């Protein structure tokens, strides 16, 4: 039952993605590329790129894309619902819980461990994408260029994505 599998996979992704955005990438990639073979490595990076220039969180964008690719519009709906549902359930539970135990700092205690883990996950995402995409000297130059612009001048990801697309068009003749 492919629809059920889509739902469960994206429910899992929604459930365990802390830290938002890039921190989710290794988990999404593991499920979608390695375990289920729904996307190729390149396709996965392309979706990350598309997510940079379209509205909405990466997790939802990839759920919609993968769902559509595997099972059409129904698949897209099921996967998107799957990735959002844990948020809804957990937030509703937390709302009741946290209002009751506002003085208890368990969230802070958990985040003492989670914060460096989120950082490690994003580093892993960067390495996985680097490994797949930087396959030559020209690619390395683009990587370095964007890395410096992003870190030093805090340029917007939308602008950087468009800029590197134009660069790619002229460099890879």
């Amino acid at each position: 039952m492919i629809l059920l599998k889509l739902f469960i996979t994206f429910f899992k992704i929604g459930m365990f993605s802390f830290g938002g955005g890039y921190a989710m990438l290794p988990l999404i990639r593991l499920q979608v590329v390695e375990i289920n073979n729904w996307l190729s490595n390149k396709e996965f990076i392309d979706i990350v790129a598309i997510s940079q220039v379209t509205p909405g969180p990466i997790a939802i964008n990839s759920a919609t894309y993968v769902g559509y690719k595997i099972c059409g519009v129904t698949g897209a709906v099921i996967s998107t619902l799957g990735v959002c549902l844990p948020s809804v359930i957990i937030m509703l539970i937390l709302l009741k819980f946290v209002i009751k135990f506002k003085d208890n700092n368990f969230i802070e205690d958990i985040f003492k461990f989670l914060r460096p883990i989120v950082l490690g996950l994003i580093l892993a995402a960067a390495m996985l994408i680097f490994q797949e995409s930087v396959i030559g000297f020209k690619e390395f130059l683009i990587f370095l260029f964007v890395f410096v612009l992003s870190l030093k001048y805090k340029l917007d990801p939308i602008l950087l994505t468009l800029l590197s697309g134009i660069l790619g068009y002229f460099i890879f003749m």
Partner: protein
Amino acid sequence: MKTFDLFKTFFKIGAFTLGGGYAMLPLIEKEVVEKKRWMDEEEFLDLVALAQASPGPIAVNTAVFIGYRLMGIRGVLFSVLGSILPSFFIILIIASCFTEMKSSYVIERIFMGIRPAVAGMVLASVFRMGRNVIFNFKKLVFVIIISICVWIYKITPIYIILLAILLGLYINFKRGKFI
């Protein structure tokens, strides 16, 4: 009409926040605190802390919180749907065209440029966040070990996250504050 208002507001937030996550927060704040006056600044900051602390996209978490505060479960339905529908339709359109577009040489060249750029942007965000998180050598080693576990040994992040939650709860419990 309040349900429609809720839907409309979050549809707008969903449609105009590119890049997701933290980029959304200023717009959400403007709509919810300043324009609609659905809650005050202090409550909004509490909500952001909670939305960041729980799993899932921050935008969706925020929508759940505000929808629930205003109209209960029915509000959640409308705010969440509103916030995800814009990106849902956009990706649907892209997904249906992308397969054909990709065979085009022009598009492939553009994406050959974008792919290494994605690696650069993600790595830059590690450094940017790292400035706030890492303040000693031990933590740096920890971060690198985690990333190697996931990158090279393909350990699923689920186990690592579960372990962190259990450790955090254990420490909280030991301090005797856990009820």
